[in-house]
């Protein structure tokens, strides 16, 4: 992550809230509330970063925002059919699957996307109820409110989970 290396003048171009979140908590996702469910709005300076933030947001919901250390790595490849919305659902579903089967939680992601594939490295550790607390069990990633917006500051993904 090269966030710390950004030139200081960039601060004036971002809303104060964004600045605060980015530098205090190192993340740029927000939790979206919904009566029965919960979602995230994840922003990154490009598609890859937005995908990584969406994943960070999802694990923040699962672990109630606790710190996740990078002790293990998983390499992930997902076929890209050309539909970015389907790709983000597949990406988060894949992480959810690994979480469920291997009891891992992830906090750091490097993502790259080309025409054919998404390839990523997810870093994290074994879920420990004592250490990571207890957030919410996410059943699935849904297509509701699913939206990927490209704008001046980068990319924003809105996505809702079934819990």
């Amino acid at each position: 992550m090269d966030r710390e290396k950004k030139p200081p003048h960039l601060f004036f171009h971002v809303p104060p809230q964004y600045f605060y979140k980015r530098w205090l908590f190192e993340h740029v996702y927000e939790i979206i509330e919904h009566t029965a469910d919960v979602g995230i709005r994840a922003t990154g300076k490009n598609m890859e970063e937005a995908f990584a933030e969406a994943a960070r947001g999802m694990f923040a919901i699962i672990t109630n925002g606790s710190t996740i250390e990078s002790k293990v790595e998983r390499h992930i490849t997902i076929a890209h059919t050309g539909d970015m919305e389907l790709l983000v659902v597949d990406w988060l579903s894949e992480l959810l699957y690994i979480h469920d089967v291997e009891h891992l939680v992830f906090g750091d992601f490097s993502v790259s996307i080309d025409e054919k594939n998404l390839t990523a490295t997810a870093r994290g550790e074994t879920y420990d109820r004592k250490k990571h607390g207890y957030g919410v069990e996410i059943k699935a990633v849904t297509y509701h409110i699913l939206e990927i917006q490209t704008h001046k500051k980068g990319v924003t993904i809105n996505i809702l989970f079934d819990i």
Partner: protein
Amino acid sequence: MWNGPLNKIGPYRYEIPKTYRGIKNNITMRVPAVIYANDQMISSVKKDNAPEQVAAVATLQGIVGRAMAMPDIHWGYGFPIGGVAATDAEEGVISPGGVGFDINCGVRLVRTNLTAGDLDRNKIKQLVDELFKNVPSGVGSSARVKLSRAQLDEVLEMGARWAVENGYGWEEDLEFLEENGCMESADAGHVSDKAKERGKVQVGSLGAGNHFLEIQRVAEIFDPEAARVYGVEKDQIVVMIHTGSRGCGHQICTDHLRVLEEAVRKYNIRLPDRQLACAPVKSREGESYFKAMACAANFAWANRQMIVDWVRQSFENVLGTGAEELDMHIVYDVCHNIAKLEEHEVDGEKRMLYVHRKGATRSFGPKRKEIPQKYASIGQPVLIPGDMGTESYLLKGTDTAEETFGSTCHGAGRVMSRQAAKRQWRGEEIARKLQQKGIYAHAASWSVMAEESPDAYKDVSMVVDTAHGAGLSLKVARMVPLGVVKG
């Protein structure tokens, strides 16, 4: 606020006429839609977009009769929660959005011959703590038993029978489960490796969220004759289990939803909402979903069957009396997220239909052949769980419910988001309040206690009274919790 037309067409019945075109003018209803509600509830029903979703369901190819919503209607993915729709078994479509992610989420009720007087607070606490120890619960709760792939395939195709044959519970239990705990159409060949891996590590676990295990006291009997036949009486201790198909079912839904997303394009199906993704029942994709969904349903029945065995063991351990001696028989087991191939009469003609019930419970009356012989004179027991610390209901199915293809409500439904609930209450407080009401709760975490606070839910009694008033299911008994195990 939804502002479409809702015409009262009878007591507890509101119709969205077939002429309604939708907020975005993109809905062409094939049949009218009906929402079951009382006059008081209808304003809150309009608050979220759920009525629009019922109208959207009415656009599905091959839909028969009417698109319907039960009194606990609220917004869901695709279908609203509380949604019921039947599609023709030849010409219709099948939609995972009409079933939900937690396939065969359901409820099971176990009776005992204990009365409230037999268990003091201390015994209840011991029982709850023992249940908490024996039944894995909470986020990422994993199985006590690790299955091989071959064993898991058996679970997926045999359902509760697999559990009984492997020593979980009694042979006679199967008679008192909807479908006898197994959908024959299951074919594990249509279930992905991922779903199987998730299943392997989670079979025999309660999970989290709104799932629970409760020791309840029968507080009130409304229908003494039906209660007698069901083996339930006032002040009796009963145990309620509310859980589903866990990650296995969620993965099956995720996988097939993805396939059907593309099938919609392939078959040129026009939908007002992406989440109504579906395929013709006779198509490869439609058949594959139905076979896989049946596997998830079977997984859930096996899951609840294993939990029942641990519930019986827990009682034996704490009370020092055998489960058979304690008369711990199953009253019934219902699923409330499912699609089933059933025969129903439509305009005087018997037809085979795929009945989608999403957050709706089957409610078959005495006429139906599917219900256990023992209950043939009364109708099928319908189990409606309340939410943590409130109350639950035992009802009976009716022949009137044929107008909803044998369906009724399933529970309360949230009125407040989990985040909002966490801000408003602290889990410790909720536990103390429950304690004051004489309820002992053991949860995996305090935040779950806050999220699942009873005040975050609609009043289950109003939902049940509406279903009763409409004749879809009739009240038999009301149960209140004494002890709660929460995931």
